[in-house]
């Protein structure tokens, strides 16, 4: 066990306990797993995995998921849950398309609408969870139902955006200098990313800064760790929770617009189960549902790991869709067990868990 300890916490430092916090350790594991997985994939399957465009496509296809997951990270660190992300995303796509097509709206207007929808949902969730003290699962579940139901009230048939100004933005690509691959005829094709990816990366950085260096961010960790002691320390628990949900709603709105930029269509089936994928990304990235532990960089790599495993499954020839969700389940299972074991090892009282499974532990959270 000691060797694992030293590997996990760094040999040079003598103060083992203080060398890495839970948050950093879980994040490091995720980052290492992702790079390890990708390197192995590069060595074994080569082909697509050596192509930088395929790596960037992970971002291109899942920028919206990353944005939703960032909002969810904040909520989960504060000890809550938000499962309305996918619903809000789908609602934003539909409303924006209808606005652009039927009402001759401008691109800027549709962006404002996306932000407005996100803010409205976040506001309602925040008020209900923080000030009415209703369980966040129920509130955001109702939010999801409301969003999914409202899509069909707006328009039953799926719609596609065809406005020129919007299409211009949709087809805009950012070319990365120096990175690219050689096509079949030997010509050099530079790698491209979509504008949504830039937004997503910017949001990851902003959220990371908020969590690390602002009072609001530190308050989130405090109330997630123990809301009673946070209250006695003079932190406004209700207001902090309210802003966490407000932020999550806003980011879901932005995620919806990024989704629209990627697909250009409004459909009730858009972003199906995105909320569960966002939760899975967070869990793999080391954010605990109990709150107080988590990091948005971990979420980023959690999302990348989740999508890379799908690519690997496809590359290894198991193309039937059910293999993908079974491997996703297995991967989740692996990470959940790993985290549970590591956290148990790190808390002195829990080491006894291993020899006698049924033994009741003396310390730690209930």
């Amino acid at each position, binding site marked *: 066990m000691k060797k694992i300890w030293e590997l996990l916490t760094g040999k040079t430092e003598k103060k083992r306990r203080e060398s890495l916090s839970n948050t950093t350790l879980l994040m490091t594991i995720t980052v290492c797993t992702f790079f390890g997985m990708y390197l192995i994939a590069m060595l074994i399957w080569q082909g697509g995995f050596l192509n930088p465009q395929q790596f960037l496509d992970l971002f291109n296809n899942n920028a919206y998921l990353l944005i939703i997951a960032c909002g969810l990270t904040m909520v989960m660190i504060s000890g809550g*849950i938000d499962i309305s992300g996918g619903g809000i995303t789908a609602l934003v796509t539909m409303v924006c398309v209808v606005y652009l097509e039927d009402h001759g709206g401008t691109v800027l207007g549709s962006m404002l609408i996306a932000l407005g929808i996100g803010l409205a949902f976040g506001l309602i969730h925040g008020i*209900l969870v923080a*000030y*009415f*003290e*209703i*369980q966040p*699962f*129920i*509130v955001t*579940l*109702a*939010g*999801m*139902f*409301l969003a*999914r*139901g*409202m*899509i*069909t*009230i707006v328009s*039953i048939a799926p719609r596609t955006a065809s406005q020129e100004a919007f299409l211009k933005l949709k087809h805009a690509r950012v070319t990365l200098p120096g990175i690219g691959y050689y096509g079949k005829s030997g010509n050099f094709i530079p790698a491209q990313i979509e504008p949504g990816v830039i937004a997503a990366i910017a949001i990851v950085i902003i959220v990371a800064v908020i969590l690390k260096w602002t009072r609001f961010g530190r308050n989130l960790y405090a109330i997630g760790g123990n809301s009673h002691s946070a209250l006695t320390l003079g932190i406004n628990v209700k207001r902090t929770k309210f802003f966490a949900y407000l932020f999550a709603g806003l980011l879901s709105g932005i995620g919806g617009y990024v989704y629209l930029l990627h697909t250009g269509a409004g459909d*009730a089936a858009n972003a199906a189960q995105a909320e*569960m994928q966002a*939760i*899975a990304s967070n*869990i793999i990235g080391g954010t605990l*549902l*109990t709150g107080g532990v988590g990091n948005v960089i971990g979420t980023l790599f959690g999302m990348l790991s989740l999508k890379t495993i799908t690519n690997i499954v496809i590359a290894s020839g198991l193309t*039937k*869709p*059910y*293999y*993908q*969700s*079974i491997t*996703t*389940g*297995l991967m*989740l*299972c692996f990470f*959940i*067990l790993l985290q*549970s*074991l590591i956290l*148990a090892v790190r808390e002195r009282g829990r080491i006894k868990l291993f020899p006698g*499974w*049924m033994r*009741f532990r003396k310390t730690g959270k*209930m």
Partner: protein
Amino acid sequence: MGNGIRKFMKSQLVIPLLSLLLLVIFNLIRDVGFFSISITTNNQGHRVLSGNLISIFNGASAIAIISIGMTLITSCCKGQDISVAALAAIAGSVFVSVLRSHEITIPVIILAFIFSCLVSVLFSLFNGVLVAVFKIQPMIATLILFSAGRSIAYWINGGATPTVSSPLLASIGGFIPGIPIPTPIIIMVIFLVLISLVLKLTNLGLYTQVVGINERTAHLNGINPVLMKLTAFIISGVCVAMAGCITVCRIGLINHETLLLDTEMDVILAVAIGGTSLGGGRFSLFGSVIGAYIIQALTVTLYAMKVPSAAVKAYKAVVIILIVMINSPVVKDFFIKLYRKLFKKQVETKISIKAS
């Protein structure tokens, strides 16, 4: 009598019963004949009961059965199992695959049901071990099977949606010849009575609540929390298998993608509306069952108001938020304070009258 009313007002059943009453009154105002029950002859030539009330009870039976298991899990594990619908799809697939390999007779149906129960209990125990032994929050632990469950069902079915048809199965999913009440309602009632008898006569219910309220205290008092949690998951597995099999019998085929789709959300709502705290502790089985009926009544009402089926969710959400808001401690406190203020004023006026 007054004491009884006061006791009732304090119980967990007040809010669900009041909301159900409100729904009934709303429907009666909208359409007086909404709850009328008539006897019709169905296409098999049997005289059966029909009407909105029957369809509410019939349609809610699957949700109600699963919500019984969910209530126990919620109570002792302080979290919810979100994989129930996926497990029901697995159980239904096993049920169908056993039925299709034999000629359908009553013993074969029982055998198939036992098999599907075993499989779903096994999967449920997997969840249970993660939750009880590895101390993972239930929602995260069950997320694994939530994402993989329907794919496992797909794998059992071999990618097809096999059908089963037999008069025996039709009588389980529909009506037994000679009895005008739909069979799912009967199964549901028998199961509820059985489970509540077990909880009343044994310490199971009490122990479950103790584990949910304070795990450490439970352990100090000689209750094994791990065993209690596993028991809750086993019972939930049986409930899920039963709901899955009933639904398969009703529709006559197994479709792993759509069988009981989104039911886990409805079930959790039913538990929450029924007055069981989602944070564990005291539970009320009857409350959860009434919660299931409220949700189904709401759905049937919305359909009767000609709301398109995809938009039903939006209206449901609004009503659910209203119900949960009334149930929330903040609003309750506000009303209690308001009541006391009014009551005190009355007392004061009485005193002043006496004094004069």
